[in-house]
Every structure is written in C-alpha cells, then in structure tokens.
C-alpha cells in the first residue's frame, strides 16, 4: 500500500478555526474521533444507516461517516460538543432529553440531538409526524423513540411559546 500524502484540512469546528493533517481516505468521522479526539460523534454502522455520526455541515444535517474529511475544507462543522454554550448552559434539546429521560444507553443521543436541531432550525413548529420523519435516519434501540419524540416536541412548543409574537397584519 502506498501511503498517500497528508493534507492540511482547515475548517471551522464548533465555531473555532481548526487545522489538522489528514489522509485523503479518512472520513470526517475518523478525523473528528481519531485526530481531534472529539469522540462525542459516534460510529454505529459506518455506512449511513444509523445516524449516530450525524453532524451539521454548514447547517445541513449529514452523516460524517459518508464524508471525506477533505470535503469540508473551508467549511463549518457542528458536532455534539458544540451544542452547549461555552458557559456550560445546555442547549434546550440537551436539557429536554435529560428531563424526558429520552436516553437510556446514550450512544445514539448525540446524533439525535443534531437531527433534532437541524429540524427545529428549519421548522420551529413541527408536527409529530414531521419529527418522526426527521429522526428516521437515527436508530435508537433502547427507547422506542417515544420519549425522544416528546422531548423534541416539548422544545418546539416551549421555544415557539417564548418567541410567540402577534402575526404581522397583512395589507388587505
């Protein structure tokens, strides 16, 4: 096997500029876990079928196991480690997962949090079936999804209540 030339990957990770040497065949997941030691992003199947490795790439939900690290050159990646505020305040989804006991073993939790965030970023008031559709790419074997779906709906409800403003009056 011919070792391939390593390349410097520069990208924004959880809001911070990062540079890391990586090989062309390394996936984003491998670089996050093995080079940057951010092991919150999990590997459950390595071919896009379980969602445990989900991250946001420039705000778009993706499987980090199906992306070459070098594909994110110059782009922005958000992982579970970047969800809470620097002062330690949990993201509302993280808090809701705790309050609803929406995790048992917890291995799928990071992926679910990112899928749920991607959903709420795009659609702050999803229906139950929309939540289920958005989470369908994340497998959980412990919970039967019930408490996860409830946690996401609960965040949506409380956020939309907090931001509720009267609808704009349309010029008749």
């Amino acid at each position, binding site marked *: 096997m011919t070792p391939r030339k390593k390349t410097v990957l520069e990208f924004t990770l959880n809001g911070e500029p990062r540079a890391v040497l990586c090989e*062309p065949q390394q*996936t984003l997941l491998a670089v996050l876990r093995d080079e940057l030691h951010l092991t919150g992003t999990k590997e459950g199947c*390595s071919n896009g079928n379980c*969602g445990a490795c989900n991250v946001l790439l420039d705000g778009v939900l993706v499987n980090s196991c199906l992306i*070459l690290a*070098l594909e994110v*050159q110059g782009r922005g990646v958000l992982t579970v480690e970047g969800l809470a505020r620097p002062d330690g305040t949990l993201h509302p989804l993280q808090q809701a997962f705790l309050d609803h006991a929406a995790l048992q073993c917890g291995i799928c939790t990071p992926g679910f949090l990112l*899928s749920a965030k991607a959903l709420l970023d795009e659609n702050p008031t999803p229906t139950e079936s929309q939540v289920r559709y958005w989470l*369908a790419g994340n497998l959980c074997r412990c919970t039967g999804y019930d408490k996860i779906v409830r946690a996401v709906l609960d965040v949506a409800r409380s956020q939309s209540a907090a931001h509720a403003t009267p609808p704009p009056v349309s010029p008749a």
Partner: protein
Amino acid sequence: MQAFDYHPVTSVSEAVALLAQGASGACLLNGGTDLLAQLKEGRRTANHVVDLKRIPELAEFRLPPEGGAWVGAAVTCRTLSRQAGWRNRFPGLHDATHLIGGVQIQGRATVAGNLCNASPAADSVPALVVHGARVHLAGPAGRRIVPVAGFCIAPGRTILARDEMVVAIEIPPLPAEFGAAYLRFTPRNEMDIAVAGAAVAVDLDGEGSHYRSVRVALGAVGPTVIEVERITARLAGRPVAEVSFDEIAALARAAARPITDMRGTSAQRQHLAGVLTVRALRLAISRARRTQAASPTGDYL
C-alpha cells in the same frame, strides 16, 4: 478504507481530464452516499477520487421561465426539498427525492448520483423517466444530451463512457394539465430500499376527464426501470372513467420482470407493480386536476 488521492476539482474540463488520465482507478465523488459505502466495503476500488461538488456549474438549480427545471449534478436532494418551486411544480419528482435515505442522506445525495449508481431500485429514476427528463453529459469530445430512459442499461451500469460525466439533469416544460406521482413500497416507512416502485405521469385534457397521454415507469421489478408502454397505448385519448384500474394494474403486473432477493419475493413485487401503479395513477390524476396536495406523505420541509 482503501487509500486514494483526492482531487477537489473546480471545472468540468478538469474532472473529465482526470477521468481520462485515471484509467480505471478514478471515481467521481458527488454526494458520496453510495461511493464511500462501496469503497469502504471493497465493492469498488479507486486510486483517484474526483470531488465534483466545487464545480460551480454542477451546483446550479434553475426553474427557467418557460417551464421545466435544471438540476445541476451536485444539487442535493435536500436542496431540492427546500425549494418551494421544486415541491410545488414537480410533486412527482419530490415524491422520490424526499424519500431517498433519511434527511441526513438527502443532505448529500444527488439525483445525478442516484441515476449514475444505476440501482434497479433507485427512487428518482422512474420519476425522471415519466417526466421525460434528459441528462446532460460532458466528455473529452464535448457535450451530449440523452434521455434518462435508457441511461441505465444494467444493475450498476450506464451508457456513460469511462471518461464521461453527468453535468445536469433537465426536466422539460410540462403541459398545463400534467400530474405525476412516484410511490414505492418498503417494509419500513423510511430508511429502506424500494421493494417495488411506480412513477406515473398523466397529461389530461382541459376538463380533466380524458387522458391525453400517460407514462408509467416501474422500479425494482427488473434490472432497470421498466416503462409500461401498453398502459401508455391503452390510455392515450381515452376517458379517465373508461379503463378500469384493475385492467391497468394487470398491465403493470404483466410488464414487471421481478426477481426474489432478500428484500422481497418475485410474486410480491409483481403484485406491487400493479398496486403501486394504480395508486400513483390516481394521485397523478388528482394532481393534474389540482385536487391533491403536493406530496402524499405530507410536507416534511
């Protein structure tokens, strides 16, 4: 994963040149959802991986004023789903592009990739066929345009020359009373591969009472998409009420050439070809008559 060199090209000519030089060891990387899985599992080998996503031309999505759509090869299914124009004007295509994989797969997967992977069960291909979509190709000798129908010639094989690539998929302008739908059957409701699929497009007369023309394309019931020409011939010019759905289902079943594999049985697939064709036809008719919401499974924006 096997080792290879990575080439983030920024022009079509660069990509084609690498393909031409790369002998059999160059692979095009678009969304990557098929390619990377295949490379990991050793189902494919590559010495050079040519990433197309930084080619500006391939990222174009346009809805020309005269109708139709231009979908650059690197436009993801997710990008399409977020376009109101795509969802509203092409519900029959949106049916397919919003159920490929889960949301995270759609964040990477492209229609061009779905086509080039040439899986018999590809969701977008039957829908593209009934929309009369065309593929814009580029190679060392220049560009050419071919219909999607006939692009795939066998499982995993297309008419693409070794040094050729897809630049875009073009959806032609559609008639006023056009309606289309794609439905598939999967045991799970998401994250599954079609056991069978059917796309139907209808063009109705002004009253919505007669078929002007009908196209039906079946997926996962043959090595490539099967167009059911006997349905096209039987329905053209006929009143919608004249031909029974049972007869149409029988024609679809007769056209299917399914196999039994781990995802379904031959008998099941044959039967589903009829069931899905009729369901898709009914939905296509109601869309042509503007009586049906954009997507049968709700709007999962």
